[in-house]
């Protein structure tokens, strides 16, 4: 039996300072340092060392074309850098994860299926990761 668990939830989520917490249903924030191989003859196992940070942040949002909502927030961020901040609360522990100067390559502007609520899956890449 696990001794410490955490019910997935966020207490705050901002994209370019816009609060999108009430639109988000899923978020994955991954801190990645690229691996560079330095294996050489004589080694019996592959060996890697750290390269550049290459962080990613993916999220699923309910889409909305209303003023101040999902589309209005993201439409002008395609192809530019921005900052995303996600805050988690686990009991008495609050942790703020920030990805500064991350890049949004694409935005699904229309995504819908018959009988379903429209959602968008977006990916922010790169940027500087910090946690407080």
């Amino acid at each position, binding site marked *: 039996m696990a001794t410490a668990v955490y019910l997935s939830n966020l207490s705050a989520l901002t994209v370019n300072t816009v609060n999108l917490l009430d639109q988000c249903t899923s978020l994955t924030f991954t801190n990645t340092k690229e691996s560079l191989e330095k294996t050489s003859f004589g080694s019996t196992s592959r060996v890697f060392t750290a390269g550049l940070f290459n962080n990613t942040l993916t999220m699923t949002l309910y889409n909305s074309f209303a003023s*101040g909502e999902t589309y209005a927030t993201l439409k002008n961020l395609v192809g530019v850098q921005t900052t995303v901040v996600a805050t988690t609360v686990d009991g008495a522990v609050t942790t703020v994860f920030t990805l500064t100067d991350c890049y949004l390559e694409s935005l699904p502007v229309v995504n819908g299926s018959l009988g379903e609520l429209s959602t968008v899956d977006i990916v922010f890449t790169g940027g500087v990761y910090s946690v407080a």
Partner: protein
Amino acid sequence: MTYIIVSHKVGTPGDEFIPAAGINVAALLSGGFIIESTKTDKKPAKPKVSKPPGPTTEGNNSDEE
């Protein structure tokens, strides 16, 4: 250049918006979340300088003989 918050999604409407590092202000303006403030900085009026009292022109009371 100062900005005013318009949308409650960014903060309290009417408050001044101070962009943090990494924030795309142009996107917020285009999305209608903030607006540019139209207030202009007024130069303060010149303060009135009161002249110190100068020497009197009355003659001395010395007796001249």
